[in-house]
């Protein structure tokens, strides 16, 4: 929320500059055509905020179409970020500032802007054709329909045309710099240093110096426009957040996932094999890893999802740390392969960057509707471990944990990320490498007493015996095997024994998991429960409710299978349990079934993240009357 905490810090000396207001946090949403460079603009502003020490969270929201017709509603791409001088958990429910590069962007995003919010528009793009494409009968900049907002309207298009008329660039190329005008203006508005941004633009467009020059120039005139225009009553400042001491970088969930995979390989001192087939929103993991071969990673773009998972199983048979990544429609194709890894008891990590389904669904929109598929989406009794990262940064630790579980328990581990985590970013306090716990992997080498399914008495894991090891020659496969010997068996008692053995092996993982931790009190009126990427919204909602005096606590599950052993105990300590998920109640069903708890559901399936206010409202409706103080709005 854009709230002025105190007003001070006068202008920087140049007299027309308005006063500077200090703000605790700001949410900006950039919106424009897919080809307008919205993600780039948002990313650059994020970088500047991060380098200035703000805490940040971002949420890119873009269409699946690469370049839908210019000016159309379908082609609108968005990027929202929250930056603050205090800890932030999400990219914000609603923007304080909406930057609309054309009428379609205004139309699709205006409902998100609170009354009184700032609307920054390129009036040059509000021409008849664009208005018609967006379905406006009248120009909203002129018909009074925006009276409830603080509209700052300027003709970016005209400004950039004038500035670049002698640049030698085409009209199209000139118009494509408009986003840097907006960026320059925002740099002025939020007092960001100009020099590092200019350096960044030059680095980014280094191969095309004429484009770099044009973008820098437009960025500068955008900044100067702020300086000279009298459209703004104030400039704003958001101080550095009090973050923990250390080295930081900004990281997206997919980037952290890729880095976590590399780190796991290094911590285990084993080669990594990553196989994938291009799919939104998981492809970035493949892109990152494809450039990291010198870190001991083999990144393989397979011919299809099935080859990605089965080649990973082959690599695992050979002793590599094998990982495959995908999204929902690819995850379902991998399930037969995952079943093979279950029965051959080979380590395998499968990442599902969940997106809205069913079928192709909404490829760029987040959802959490693949939990039951991860748990049960295979033929036969086919138990696997399932874990879910809670924040973009947590993707790093989650991947290390996934590799640790898979290799120590000789089983497949599903990692359920989602589209919002994958593309969202936040500052990352870089870990000390030497502080990361090594992953101990032992391959079997001694032929004495070897049998392919002879189990570790503690974990029940079978030995990892690699081809190339003399004396351990053996055969494995998808047919049911006799325990210990691994020979094909149709014996009824053996089958039941093996079904229960595979389950027990997964259940025993719980023994080594840390206990689940509750945020807030360990008992109370209401426990909010979530899993994976809804962490930020649930944590912030809990803080809000607690600050109002409500006896609300929060439990975010990172381990979905097996559950940590104290989960039942935690649930039973609260009068009510509300399970919030981006699906129709999958975790809630599991908890009700497992613990006979009368958990309530908060479900959202709109292809959007959970919003804090939605959780707060749902929680309030469950709390007994009199315990909720009305919020002063």
């Amino acid at each position, binding site marked *: 929320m854009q709230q002025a905490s105190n007003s001070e810090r006068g202008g920087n000396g140049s007299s027309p500059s308005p006063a500077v207001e200090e703000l605790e946090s700001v949410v900006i949403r950039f919106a424009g055509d897919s080809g307008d460079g919205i993600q780039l603009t948002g990313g650059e502003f994020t970088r500047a905020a991060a380098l200035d*020490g703000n805490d940040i969270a971002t949420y890119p929201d873009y269409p699946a179409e690469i370049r839908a017709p210019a000016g159309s509603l379908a082609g609108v791409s968005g990027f929202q970020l929250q930056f603050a001088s205090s800890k932030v958990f999400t990219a914000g429910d609603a923007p304080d500032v909406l930057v609309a590069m054309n009428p379609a962007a205004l139309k699709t995003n205006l409902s998100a802007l609170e009354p009184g919010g700032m609307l920054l528009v390129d009036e040059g793009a509000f021409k008849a054709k664009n208005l018609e494409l967006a379905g406006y009968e009248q120009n909203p900049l002129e018909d009074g329909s925006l009276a409830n907002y603080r509209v700052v309207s300027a003709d970016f298009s005209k400004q950039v045309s004038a500035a670049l008329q002698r640049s030698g660039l085409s009209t199209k190329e000139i118009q494509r710099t408009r986003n840097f005008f907006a960026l320059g203006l925002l740099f002025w508005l939020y007092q960001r240093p100009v020099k590092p941004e200019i350096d960044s633009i030059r680095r980014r467009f280094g191969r095309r110096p004429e484009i770099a020059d044009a973008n820098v120039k437009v960025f500068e005139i955008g900044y100067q426009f702020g300086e000279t225009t009298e459209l703004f009553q104030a400039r704003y400042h958001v101080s550095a957040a009090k973050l923990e001491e250390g080295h930081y970088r900004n990281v997206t969930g997919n980037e952290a996932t890729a880095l976590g995979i590399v780190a796991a390989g290094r911590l285990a001192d084993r080669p990594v094999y990553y196989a994938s087939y291009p799919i939104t929103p998981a492809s970035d993991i493949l892109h990152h890893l494809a450039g990291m071969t*010198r870190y001991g990673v083999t990144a393989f773009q397979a011919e299809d999802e099935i080859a990605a998972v089965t080649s990973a199983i082959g690599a*695992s048979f050979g002793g590599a740390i094998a990982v495959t990544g995908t999204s929902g429609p690819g995850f379902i194709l991998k399930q037969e392969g995952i079943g093979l890894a279950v029965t051959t008891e080979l380590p395998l990590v499968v990442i599902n960057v969940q997106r809205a389904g069913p079928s192709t669904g909404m490829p760029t929109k987040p959802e959490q509707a693949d939990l039951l598929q991860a748990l049960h989406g295979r033929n036969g009794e086919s138990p696997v471990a399932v874990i879910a990262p809670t924040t973009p940064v947590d993707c790093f630790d989650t991947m290390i944990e996934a590799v640790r579980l898979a290799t120590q328990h000789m089983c497949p581990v599903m990692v359920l990320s989602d589209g919002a985590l994958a593309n969202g970013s936040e500052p990352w306090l870089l870990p000390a490498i030497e502080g990361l716990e090594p992953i101990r992997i032992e391959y079997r080498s001694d032929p004495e007493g070897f049998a392919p399914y002879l189990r570790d008495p503690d974990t029940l894991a079978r030995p990892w015996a690699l*081809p*190339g090891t003399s004396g351990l020659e053996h055969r494995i496969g*998808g047919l049911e095997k006799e325990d210990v010997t691994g020979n094909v068996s149709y014996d009824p008692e053996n089958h039941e024994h093996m079904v229960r053995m595979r389950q027990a092996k997964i259940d025993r993982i719980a023994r080594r998991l840390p206990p689940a931790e509750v945020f807030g009190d360990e008992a109370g009126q209401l426990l909010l429960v979530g899993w994976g990427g809804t962490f930020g919204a649930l944590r912030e909602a809990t803080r809000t409710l607690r600050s109002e005096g409500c006896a609300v606590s929060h439990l975010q599950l990172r381990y979905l299978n097996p559950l940590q052993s104290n989960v039942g105990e935690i649930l039973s300590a609260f009068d009510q349990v509300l399970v919030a998920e981006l699906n129709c109640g999958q975790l809630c069903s599991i908890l009700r079934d497992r613990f006979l708890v009368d958990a309530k559901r908060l479900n959202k399936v709109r292809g959007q993240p959970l919003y804090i206010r939605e959780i707060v409202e749902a929680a309030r409706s469950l709390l007994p009357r009199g315990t909720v103080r009305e919020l002063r709005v």
Partner: protein
Amino acid sequence: MSPEASAGLTRRDFVSDQAIRWCPGCGDYAILAQMQKVMPELGIQREKIVFISGIGCASRFPYYMNTYGFHTIHGRAPAVATGLKLARPDLSVWVVTGDGDALSIGGNHLIHTLRRNLDLKILLFNNRVYGLTKGQFSPTALRGMRTKSSPEGTVARPFHTLSLALGAEATFVARTVDTEIQHLQEMIRRMAAHKGTALLEIYQNCPVFNDGAFEDLKDRKIKSDHLLVLEQGQTLRYGAEQDRVIKLNPKHMCLFPGRADEDDEGVEVVHDERAVDPTLATLLARCEGPEFPTPIGVLRAIEEPTFEERSMAQVEAQRRRLGDGQLSELLFSGDRWDVDQ
């Protein structure tokens, strides 16, 4: 691998302790026996050898070889083998598959595996029928074949396996017949010697669901008229007297069966398995009875760097350019800032 590595190994060392469960008279027995016979000659340490199969009668093969083995899922053996070979280039990886496994459910993996050219050996047992599911038509079933799932006869035309392989840019393409024991052994040796993906199609009789499918190629009395044994540098002669010949009609770019001493529109061509251009190999791959004899032998064997060699070269180049990757350097890359209290 030095020949000494497997010194002392015999056929018996490659026989596993598992009871074989193929039907009596199945062609698979002969193939298994020849494989177990040839393996000790190849100079490969036994523990370095891995057999990977999919699903189908043929795919039980790994259980009977006393090497490492992986009986995977339907159609996916080439993909599993690809991952294993990429992770472990030191291993000798053999894929055993069938016509349904490789050409129907696993068709995509097969063509892409051939295209990439990893150092893998693929034995494709072709009996033109689904055996393990009790007799449905396969993608190589001849048109009109009556089966439980095609009571009026199949409608679609069959794949020409080797033509498909050549179209997929395979670097080694060969064919043999399960009963041609010496030839089968020689083909196994040849594919072992090839550096790259080697595909060997083995015509294999299913005595239960498609008995006699290759009878013309097996009957001692007539087989010389039906088998064209390809030899490097030789013309395409066949027949008991070697007087029959496959000629090329250059005007129409097609092959036709003729006589050596006949004056016709054709010219005799010399078989060159090392020809980079796959045209003649493709024409041969499409020859079939009753008009043509069935070519067996190596249709194509060209030398090209393998996928893993090309990949390793890229990795080495990246290492030379940027140095060995250090994790801390990777994590600390990009725009960074420090927070001091």
